[in-house]
Structure formats: C-alpha cells, structure tokens
C-alpha cells in the first residue's frame, strides 16, 4: 500500500512538473496575455509589463518559480489566476460541480449502453443481431464527439424541440451533453466487455456449469459476466480520462461552465496557476478512482482478496 501511495504521489508530481515546463516553454507568458488582450494590442510600457510580471512572480528564474510553486502547491495553494486575479483552486472547485454532473451522466449512460450492447450482443442466438450490436461500439469509438453533439442538438433540440441545447435547468439539460460525453467511453466499455464475455463463454467451466443443469441466462449473467466484468471495471478507471478530455468539446457545444472550459481558457492564456490547479486536481482524481477500482476488485474476485495485483495505479493520467 505504501508503494501504491508513493506511485500516486509521483504521478501527481510528474503532472505538476510537466505542465509547468510546457507552459513555461511556450513563447510569451500570462502577463503579456493579460496586458495585450485588448483590441489593438498592448498599450502598456515595458516597465509596466515588468511590474505585472513581478506581481505574479513571473520574473523569477525558472528554478525559483518552480520551487515556489511546488512548495505552495504542497500546501494546496496554486496561486492566483493571472488573467482574473481569482484564487486558482477556487476557480477549479467552482467549475467542478458542472463537470461532475455531465461526467456522471455520461458514465451512467456509458455503462448502461456499452454494457447492455455487449451483454445482448453476446447473449442473442441470432448471429446477425449479435454482429450488428457488436459492430456499434467500434463505430461509436470512431465518431468525432463534436460531430455527435452537433447532430444531437440539431435533431433533438432544434428540429424536434424536445430537449434544450443550452442551460443547466433540470435533468433534461443533462441528457444530450451526457450522451455526447459518454459515447466514446460507452463504446470502449462495450468493446472490452464483449471481448472478455466471449473469452469467458469459451472457457471450459461454462460447459461444466451447463452440464450441471444451469440455464443459459444463469451462465451468462451469473458466471461469465461476473468474470468478464473485471477488465471492464479496470477500464472505468482509465476512461475517466476520456470523460475529462471530452469536457472541452461538450461544455463548449452545450454552453456549460466546467473544467474543460476553464482549462481551455487557462491554457490559451498561459495562466500557469490555473492550469496546474486543474492538472494536479485531475491527477488526484484519477489516482483516487483507480484506488477505488482496486478496492472493488476483491469483491468481484475473491481470489484477489488480501492481495494487490494491479500495478498500473494511474494509467491514463
């Protein structure tokens, strides 16, 4: 367990350091973005630019900036946004609920539809139906999210006028963004679960269980699905990254606030404090999800109880 925690800390530290280096290497800095954002460009004098740089510590040597930020970050302080002057951690927590809403909606839909397709596709006796159902996940993976969201809005909001295209009022406003953000995740879950269900159904124990008089449904849902769920569950930890990556597109398309919009704005303006707050908190989120997934493992597979077999703690971070 200690080793796992150390790995987790290493992942978060790496995320922190990489984001700092990348943003630092980009030409220009947040002070130039802040002062030059107006139409017609910058009107401030070089001395005024220097004063703003100093105010945000952007004039310190690279190592000093890094050290100061790292030290503050270990105390939960990522500094103030250069663009808005707000506390970076506060900005992330303000944006978080909105993102969690669509991410949760997306995850639920992904598990229901991805899992449902895999189970039905492998259960049905009609080969053509199974093939049809199981060809949907690869299709879902290949569809661009932006296009999917756009088509959903056009059909269900602008043409049929059933669901809102924007806003956050009520459950109805969650459906279209939920589908958009959940689609690639659901498709991956469907693919992986279908593959491992087929593997399980080909195992010798299936014959034995059938020979003992169990029904097909009992074999499928009671035995094969339970065993096949393991790889799919591992995947949930990984696809959390997919969900987060989808927030930029989904939140932009559905005019919602959230982590994606915040990140896009912060990256565009090289607002290092905000970008780092987002990245470190996201890394923390992945590590936690994967930890939870590990804790659920033994419940599904008693052989794993008391042992930790998974090594990749924070894959996808």
């Amino acid at each position, binding site marked *: 367990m200690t080793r796992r925690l150390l790995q987790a800390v290493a992942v978060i530290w790496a995320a922190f350091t990489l984001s700092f280096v990348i943003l630092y290497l*980009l*030409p*220009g*800095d*947040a002070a*130039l*973005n*802040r*002062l*030059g*954002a*107006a*139409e*017609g*460009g*910058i*009107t*401030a*004098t*070089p001395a*005024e*630019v220097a*004063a*703003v740089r100093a105010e945000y510590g952007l004039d310190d040597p690279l190592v000093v900036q890094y050290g100061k930020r790292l030290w503050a970050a270990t105390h939960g302080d990522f500094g103030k946004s250069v*663009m*808005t*002057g*707000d506390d970076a951690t506060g*900005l992330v927590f*303000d*944006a978080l609920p*909105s993102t969690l809403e669509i991410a949760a909606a997306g995850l639920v839909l992904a598990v229901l539809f991805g899992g449902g397709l895999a189970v039905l596709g492998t259960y049905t006796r009609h080969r053509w139906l199974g093939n049809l159902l199981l060809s949907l996940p690869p299709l879902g993976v290949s569809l661009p999210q*932006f296009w999917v969201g*756009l088509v959903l*809005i*056009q059909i269900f*909001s*602008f*043409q049929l*006028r059933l669901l*809102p*295209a*924007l*806003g*956050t009022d009520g459950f109805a406003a969650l459906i279209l963004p939920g589908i958009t953000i959940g689609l690639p995740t659901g498709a991956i879950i469907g693919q992986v679960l279908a593959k491992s269900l087929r593997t399980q159904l080909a195992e010798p124990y299936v014959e034995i269980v059938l020979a003992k008089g169990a029904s097909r449904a009992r074999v499928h849902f009671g035995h094969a699905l339970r065993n096949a769920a393991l790889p799919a569950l591992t995947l949930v930890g990984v696809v959390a990254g997919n969900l987060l990556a989808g927030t930029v597109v989904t*939140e*932009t*398309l*559905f*005019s*919602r*606030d*959230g982590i994606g*919009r*915040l990140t*896009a*704005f912060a990256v*565009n*303006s*090289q607002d290092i404090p905000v970008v780092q707050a987002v990245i470190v908190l996201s890394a923390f989120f992945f590590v936690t999800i994967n930890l939870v997934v590990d804790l659920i493992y033994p419940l599904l597979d008693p052989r794993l109880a008391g042992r930790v077999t998974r090594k990749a703690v924070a894959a996808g971070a």
Partner: protein
Amino acid sequence: MVTRPVRTLGFGALALVLLTGCGAQATAGGGGDAGTPRVGGTLRLGISSNPDCVDPQQWGTNASLNVSRQLVDSLTDQDPADGAIKPWLAERWEVNADSTAFTFHLRDGATFSDGTPVDAAAVKASFDGARALGPKAALVAGYLAAYRGSTVVDPRTVRIDFTAPSAQFLQASSTMTLGVLAPAAYNKTPEQRCQGDGLIGSGPFVFESYKQNQQVVLVKRKGYNWGSPLWKHTGEAYLDRVEYRIVPEPGVRSGSLASGQLDAITDVQPVDEPQFAGNGFTEPVRPNPGIVFNLTANTTRGVLTDPKVRQAVAKGVNRQEVVDTVLTKNYKAATSVLGSATPLHTDLAGLLAYDPAGAGALLDAAGWRPGPDGIRVKDGQRLSAAVVFSAVFNQNQSALELIQQQLRKIGFDLRIELKTTAESTQIQLSGEYDFIWFNVTRADPDILRQTYSTKAGNRSKLTAGNPLDAALEKQAATTDRAVREPAAAEAQRIIVEQGYSIPVFELTQVWGLGPKAHALEFEASSRLRLYDAWVAE
C-alpha cells in the same frame, strides 16, 4: 481575446446546411421596432464569449462591455448618429482652452443602487479608483493617460484635470469604461468587482448574478429616472430581467435563436446571416467606430521602408473583393484608416481604390522587377513582407489569405503568420514585425494618436517630429470641432497616403433578433444598449 478553435468555421458551415430547413419554418412576426413597447418580461440574449469580468472599468472586450453598459451611467452620452457629446449624469460642462481641465455640473436626483447619491465626491472616487487599476485596465489607462486628479468644487460640481491636452476625454467620459461606480464599490477588491460583487452603479439595470461560462443576470433598477436625452423613453427600463447566455459555438447560437430558445444573439457569423433576414427575424447591423482592420506597416523594416512599396500594397488590395468573398454585404470596405462610424471620419475612398496597374507602375519606378516566380526582385532582394495576426475575429485568416492572393498579382509576397495573443503582444513590444493586422474600437479620432503617435503606441515606428505627430497633437488639444476636424482629417490623409496603414474593412456588429425581441440599440461605440429594449408576449 482567446484564440478561437479553428473548427468553429467548419462547424458554422455545417450548421448552416443542417439549419436550412429549420430557419425556413420560423413564423413571420413583428421583429425590429414594430408595435408598442411592453413593460416587463425577460430577454434571453446569447452572447459569443465569456465576459470574464463584468466591471466596465477593468475589462475591454465586447462581451464584457455589452453587459456592463447597462449597469453604469456615464457623465455624458454620445450620439451614435453624429458623435456629438450629450448630457447624462452631467447636465452641462466646460472645457478649458487647452483641454486640460473639464468641469462637470451634475444633475440632481440620480442615485446608485445602494441608495447613495451620484455626487461630485462619488465621481472623484470613481475616477481615482479607475486610475488606480493601472495598466491592467487598458482602456482606462488610455483614456486617463494624463490624469492629474479630480477636485470636488461643490457637491454637484467636479473638475477633472490632466497634465497634457486630452480632448479625447470628453468622448471617453461617455463610455461605460468611465462609467461611475458608487464609492462603496471600491471597498471591494478589483477581483470581487469583476465577478459583480460590489459592482454598484446608477444604471438602468442592476447586477444579479454571474456564473462563469454560463450566464450573467441583470434586473431592472426600480425608480430609475435619469437616462440620457438620446434615449427613446424616460423612467425605468422596459425589461424586468436580462439573461445573457454565453453560447460560444456560432451554430448553436443561431440555431437556439431560430428554435426560440433565445430571443436575440450577438455575433451572427457571416455564414449564418442569411437565415435571419426577412422571415420574422431582424438583423441590426452597425460598423465599429475606430481603426478599421488594417495592415499597419513598420516603416523601419525591409522592403516597407520604401513609401512607394507601401503605396503599391495599398493599391494592390481589392477591398471590395474581400468584403464580397470573405464577409457579407453587412460589412463595408474601408474608406479611411478610421471606420465610417467614427466621428470626424474622412472619406479617402479615392486613395484606396483597387489599382493593380498603378501599383505595378509604382514598383517599376522603384526598380522592382518581376522575378522567376512572379514575385518582384530588386538587387537580389525579394519583394516580401510578413503580417502578424491573431484569430480574434473569425474571418481574419480567410481575409488575409485573399489579400495574399491579391498582392501576388502585383508581384508582392505577403507571408501570413498566425500568432497567439502572448506571441503577438511580445512581437508588438519588441517592434520586430513587418505588418501587423488589427482593429481598435473607439468612437473618437484620438485613437490614431494612441496608435501612431511617436509618444504613444507608434505602431509604424516613425521618428519623432514627423508631420503626423503634429496633426495628431493638434486634434488632441481642442474639443472645438472647427479646429479638430481638419487636424483629424490631415492625420488620416497622412497615414493613408504614406501607407503607414493599409486599411481593408470595417469590423461590423451583426445581431440576430427573434420575432419577440425589439429595440436592442447600438450606442456610439457599437455596443449594446438595452434601456429601450422590450420583448413581446
């Protein structure tokens, strides 16, 4: 201000295709200004980007100013029709001979939304507070560049002094940027005011809430009765409530308007414009005053040091083709470095006519001969220059690509360099550019001084004491139109004739109004004014 994803263009086109059926179904109705204004109701207005900050003194983006204009009153108002300055919070004013002292006599009875009076002390507190924001408040920094201080002469009289002639301040006093905030507002930090906390004005609407990237809500100010004489009615605003919905995707914005989920939108993209013309929808349009989209030349760099080359480039740009191809009929080809909506704009269309033969003759005379690839050459040097731009306006890239093709025909190689805001800011600071592509919104010709004077922006890198400096200083020194107009005209003529700037087209605001929305107005800087706006039931 933030670089927009390139894909918005493609999306807009796709949205148009998908929307064609939808838009055509929209029922015919009133729209525009028809009918009797209704009191009450909510306007749902889709805006294209997050305002980031709703304090008019701190933030200068259109999205922000379109919100904050409703919250604050200004000392004066500017007539969009002719640029004349009219009373508002100030009933009258005097300006001294060299435009360094402005004395405002305030009207009686105006109060902030916290109940405190709009008096001379409040005006002083507000101007001092605005100036204290420093260079981060770029617009204030320009308007109050020479601010010495404010003096309370008596409770209803305030004098504002400058260390240098500042004729532009009279127009600046009409902007929301110098809108008056209550003294209590400055008990809050600038960051708090940005989010609307303590953003207390005396305007016809009051701030209610701001959710980043989602919406800003304003409500009617009860008892408001000190509007500008330029407005269409008196008393309180018609609307009870305004919801600014932040809808960044152009196709979603126009589709939401077409399907009735929004009452009005700003920033209709050229590709979406046709669907809101003549089917129950209306499309208010106004060009921005100030400096048009233009190629400003660095006169110290490479081939651009030669005035003949700059003049040839000016003749080689087919402005009308840019408007017809990349934009729409709602946009205007530039007729000066200042837009046609700018007070004291001079029509120099004759100098800006498309004349490739004339351009060729100029280049021939200067010794530039066509090279093997069609680009002219002289003494082994290619006739080539780069233009630095950022994607603040969606059509920038397409416009520049077309200009590149046009200039190729006269043997000039224009290299297009897309930069981020930070990069282009750095390039501007260092002066290491050939051309820069930009516009600036300002309803006063002084923007030319701010941009081209050797004592201010000096974007063309001119040497001090040139004839342009003299003209710019002359227009800055007086509010007397009889003196100012010829000076401003001379400045425009010099800039265009010398090719310091090659004007191309006027940035234009295009809004879409649904059948229920009425009387959303442009103020003099082409920003939104909602006081007279109303929604039908």
